[in-house]
């Protein structure tokens, strides 16, 4: 507990501010979650996930299982029994523990709870125990990941930067992205294709889009902006991320996932 507390305090200093409302002490009792929260929309859950990744994952980890005795992703809490309990803990913290109070509204806290509910049914990594060092070698070698991705300033900018991916995504999600990349593409990883009126084709990762314009980073790592009226065609295209289902074996997949989970951002 002391270690966990020290770790949390260290992160508090690094992150600062009110974002430190880790969902630390959610119960001693193992608690069977309901299948999913009622009245919550997909965007509520996505919003809750965003808050969870930005805030709670700093201490609880992307899978919510980095505090001993707590596994948020599987509904394993310490005291919470109901959604209301969870909302109260998020808002008021747990006195006597590093879990601080927050200034989240009821609505915001409920969205985080909705996200936790939605993930409860999803298993975490089913793969073997991975080795991050081997995973790094695969990431940079056989996997060819640096051709599109970047980690700690090494690699391409075409795909999403993975320097902090271990803080942002759960290992189960990372494994799924490796095996079935099209299953879920985060908004920041979507690809777009435009054809200009003179026939030039430009593809890249979408950075921004509105009624009249499109901004992307293209496959030559150039920041590009287009006015839609000047385009012959434009639209989303599938992610160029290949499936590693056949390329990497179970152990190798676990190794790569382990490496990705270890990417928690640079200590600036």
């Amino acid at each position: 507990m002391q270690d966990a507390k020290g770790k949390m305090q260290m992160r508090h200093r690094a992150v600062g501010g009110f974002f430190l409302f880790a969902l630390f002490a959610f119960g001693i009792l193992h608690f069977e979650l309901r299948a999913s929260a009622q009245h919550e929309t997909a965007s509520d859950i996505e919003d809750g996930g965003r808050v969870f990744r930005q805030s709670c994952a700093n201490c609880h980890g992307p899978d919510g299982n980095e505090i001993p005795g707590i596994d948020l992703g599987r509904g394993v809490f310490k005291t919470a029994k109901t959604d209301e309990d969870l909302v109260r803990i998020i808002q008021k913290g747990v006195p006597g523990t590093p879990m601080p109070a927050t200034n989240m509204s009821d609505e915001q806290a409920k969205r985080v709870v909705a996200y936790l509910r939605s993930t409860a049914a999803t298993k975490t990594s089913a793969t073997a125990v991975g080795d991050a060092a081997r995973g790094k070698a695969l990431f940079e070698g056989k996997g060819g990941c640096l051709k599109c991705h970047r980690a700690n300033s090494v690699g391409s900018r075409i795909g999403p930067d993975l320097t902090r991916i271990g803080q942002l995504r759960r290992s189960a999600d990372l494994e799924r992205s490796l095996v079935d990349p099209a299953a879920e593409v985060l908004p920041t990883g979507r690809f777009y294709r435009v054809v200009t009126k003179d026939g030039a084709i430009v593809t890249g990762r979408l950075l921004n889009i509105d009624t009249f314009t499109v901004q992307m980073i293209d496959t030559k790592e150039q920041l590009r902006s287009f006015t839609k009226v000047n385009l012959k065609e434009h639209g989303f295209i599938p992610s160029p991320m290949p499936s590693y289902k056949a390329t990497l074996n179970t152990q190798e997949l676990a190794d790569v996932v382990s490496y990705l989970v270890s990417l928690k951002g640079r200590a600036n």
Partner: protein
Amino acid sequence: MTRRTGLFALTAAVAAAVSLNAQVTFDRILRADREPQNWLSYSGTPFNQRYSPLTQITTANAKNLELQWIWQARSLEKFEATALAVDGVLYTVQAPNDVVALDAESGRPFWTTTYAPAPEARTCCGRVNRGLAILGDTLYMGTIDAHLLALDAKTGEILWNKEVASAKDRYSITMSPLIVKDKVIIGTAGGDGPIRGQIAAFDAKTGKELWRFYTIPGPGEPGNDTWSGDSWKTGGVGVWNAGAYDPETNLTFFGTGNPAPDWDGRSRLGDNLYSDSVVALDADTGTLKWHYQFTPHDELDYDSTQVPVLADIQFRGKPRKVMLWANRNGLMYVLDRVTGEFLHGRAYVKVNWADGFDSKGRPQRVPGMVPTKAGTVIRPHVHGATNWAPPSFSPRTGLYYVAHFENSSTVAVEGEFPRANGINPRQTTMGQINLQNFLNNEDEAYGVVRAYDPNTLEPKWEYKMADITWGGVLTTAGDVVFSGGKEGYFFALDARTGALLWKAALGGQVNAGPMSYSINGKQYVTIAAGNSLYAFALRGDVK
């Protein structure tokens, strides 16, 4: 800084569109006049002339300027940054320290990187930032918690983060960094408090510190004896505005701030070097080559952190490498930037604390013009004749353009923040983002843009505003001057006559300098006002 024709400017702009996102080498920064479509450093080039060689907007067609886009910052702090324009991308700062990349044509964002300064960060005058620097593919920003950040210009990723000085000790950074060769050079603000100001150089690639210059000499160093007792340890002298660089002498130039405590010099007797000075530092080593002190033993908060403007001019019949400096203390200077020699100086507003210079250029004090218990009316105001807003020099007209206050004064009281003097006590307050009702009568301070002849320092013309101004000045090869002020107007003047050509009401105070760039054959002019960045260009298809 040679003349550029419109054809050249247009050709260069088209060429840039082809070679998108090339590396910004130091040679490109140094010769930014060769690529007028871009704006590669705070005031355009390391000479800080804030002059755009673009020619599309002229005195004849400026009346056809119209709004192209607005980008609203998610910040209620003053917007003091000048954007960089790099091959179709604008980079600017959302105060205090978020970095934003915008499409230069539409103002739409490519990316935003947020930075949360440490809670202990303190600034005297707003949680502001004046802009970024770029080298290669990397952006650089000083932060209000006194860090220097390097960011990937393609993605906004923070590459390294160095603490320049401790925010706990009341240091901060608000200026744009200066790039020289492979170095990033930055100064520390906070000089109204008990700091010891610094200028430090860092390796652009790694963030490793290469040299550090203290603006107050330590024991055993020349100038330490200009501070009585231990006052040198906490004498202030911050550095909080853009520096300049001259490749011929390899010298960097920085203006330094006031000595602390600000309005009571009894605890720091002496000239207090190098407060209120310009220091010329060797870019490779940080060694002081020369200095010139504008206000020895300052008790009126006359920071000399104005932007140094370098120019090669005919001075009294001979070619001369000069530095032009309209100072907060109400005096304007021409210095030889190679030697630091004082060439010429005169009061450019109503001044009553000095009445001339001795043979070496030291200002001659008027007896009694110091803070007293009863209060002394002193001109100009504590906020100065001008403060930090960047001026301009046009190599076409040979004139030095400064936006400043006129007729300002202050009641200087020993050890206290000076009171404004006038019917409206807010007459010379610092800029805010919102417009305020204006109530001054004609006897009180007002703002002007004036065009000065560097040979005489006499104004050629004046454009007068009702309220004061914290806005900077841009000149262009179309002989147009752009500026704005606290009233929220952004306007275009004829660079040769000062005639008003065009104006726009922006709904927020102008607290920044304008800049210009082009993309796809169209010249844009930007200005920050309120909490937004505005881009203007000529109406219709001007290709």
